């Protein structure tokens, strides 16, 4: 068959055909990727005038109306609180992940720790762990183990609270961030550090003045990965924290209300809730907000050229 193929087309034509086929598949993937989002733009526009179905109470009748573009999401204070909550929790998660993850990634990259391969497998398996599983594991770890007694003794509650969002986001965001940071440190030749040490600087100073600047693009890329993974977390939050939008305003602490985080869900949970309850235009508007956030971060990661290793 290959012979007849070769007789029909010359070698050069054959090569052109194969390259064209590869390009075609890539362009197809590109178009499909764009079409996934573009084909939904019409969902933002209201199709039918808003009306009440007899015998069916509209959800949140004081909320956004369906009769306008995107359910009028920009005029809804709950939407902006939700954006605020997403940004605040994702930033907090990123900072905690960086504080623990960067030294840990450095240790895994530099020192001969026994069982390093096992740690790598464990960390990368978190990336392919179902989010429902992560949420459930968190609930059981914090409610059905000695940690529950610790929470009661200290009076700190984590499940179904706003700090709980940060904790559950941390699971995936730390794993992905650490893989990026580890790759960033792996790419820095340890010889530079050895030279700095031999010239008399301490391990900390060699890290701060030599390794960290050399690994900077990869570290920033890891920070972005950690941030965007935290902002995109959905399933874990749903199981671990539930939703906050329907709770009375009085149940939130003064600090939460001062920061404007009360009665709001992270964007991904908000999108799900709006669509499940029939606010389709509003839900798609929230979805496009998420797409915008992801697009900006992915573009930045590509520009920085960081590497996120899966394994």
């Amino acid at each position, binding site marked *: 068959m290959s012979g007849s193929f070769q007789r029909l087309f010359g070698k050069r034509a054959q090569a052109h055909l*194969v390259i064209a086929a590869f390009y075609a598949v890539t362009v197809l993937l590109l178009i499909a990727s764009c079409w996934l989002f573009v084909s939904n733009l019409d969902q933002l526009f209201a199709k039918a005038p808003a009306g009440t179905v007899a015998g069916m109470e509209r959800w949140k009748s004081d909320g956004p109306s369906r009769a306008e573009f995107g359910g009028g999401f920009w005029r809804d204070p709950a939407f902006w609180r939700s954006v605020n909550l997403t940004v605040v929790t994702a930033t907090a998660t990123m900072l905690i992940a960086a504080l623990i993850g960067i030294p840990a990634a450095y240790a895994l990259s530099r020192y001969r720790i026994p069982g390093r391969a096992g740690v*790598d497998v464990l960390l990368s398996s978190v990336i392919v*762990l179902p989010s*429902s599983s992560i949420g*459930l594991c968190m609930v059981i770890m914090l409610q059905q183990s000695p940690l529950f007694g610790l929470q009661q003794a200290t009076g700190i509650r984590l499940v179904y609270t706003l700090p709980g969002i940060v904790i559950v986001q941390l699971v995936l965001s730390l794993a992905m961030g650490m893989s990026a940071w580890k790759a960033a440190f792996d790419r820095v030749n340890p010889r530079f550090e050895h030279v700095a040490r031999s010239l008399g600087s301490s*391990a900390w100073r060699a890290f701060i003045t030599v390794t960290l600047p050399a690994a900077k693009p990869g570290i920033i890329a890891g920070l972005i990965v950690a941030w965007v993974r935290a902002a995109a977390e959905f*399933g874990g939050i749903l199981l671990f924290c539930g939703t906050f939008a329907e709770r009375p305003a009085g149940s939130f602490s003064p600090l939460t209300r001062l920061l404007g985080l009360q009665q709001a869900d992270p964007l991904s949970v908000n999108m799900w809730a709006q669509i499940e309850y029939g606010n389709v235009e509003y839900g798609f508007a929230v979805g496009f907000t998420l*797409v915008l956030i992801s697009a900006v971060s*992915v573009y930045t990661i590509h520009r920085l050229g960081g590497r996120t290793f899966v*394994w």
Partner: protein
Amino acid sequence: MNEEVLSNKLSATERERIAHSSLRLWPVACVTAACAVLAGYLALVGSNAIYLGWSDALSFLPRTRLWVRFWLTVRTSALATCFSLLVGIPAGYALSRFRFPCRTLLATLIDLPVMVPAAAVGVFLFGVVKSFPVRQVTELLGVRFAHNANGIVLVQFAVTVAFCARLMKASFDAVNPRFEQVSRSLGASLPGTLLRVTFPLAKNGIVASAIVVWARAAAEWEGLMLFVGGTMAKTDVMPFSVYLDWNGGMMGWVVTFSLVCVALAVTSMAAARLIGGRSYVW
């Protein structure tokens, strides 16, 4: 005077060195952080295993209710992986080898479904299924996506295809293009070079990536929740059963399903690591 300054500086760095080397604060802090991370993830899985207990695990594991969902997950994600590989291998090769204008922008567009929450991808699939090419083709073939296994495969494919292309790009990046150039210069055709040089060299990476893509497809749940919906014993793949049974309050089943998912994830990642060196998404 110059010497004096120099000696002062030397003694300062010397003092600092001695102070730090006696404490070794930074290496200790790094290793502690690594151990804390490891302990955290082990506690996450370990607490669940302890909660379920050995006797409960033994009573839940042989039951059909588990294995129906297990095989449904394996089947659908294997099918989705096949589709992803069909698109991902050529696209990954093109991304790895060819240079084209606006690479960063186009690569961002291709990568978007990896970073957008899977729930949003599931929601956005409604528009794709309802609109021009897909709708006509599916009507012609008589394929329906709502509330059945076709929908599961579609969501898993949508979530994994870009991921697959990225991993394949990494696999092909690991193959030095010089080998291909040498093969071409010695007179082999491009398809011959691909089949005899590039694919054999990238084989390990491709197999390992396929396993990871399969694991990612098997872990898909959020997109299913919005696009397919949960029908007991019909569309509930294992991650979905975790959610459904959680709402039903069947904690034994939930933890069993969840631990089987964890076992699948860890096994496939260990297998991928054993087979092929390293791979990256970006």
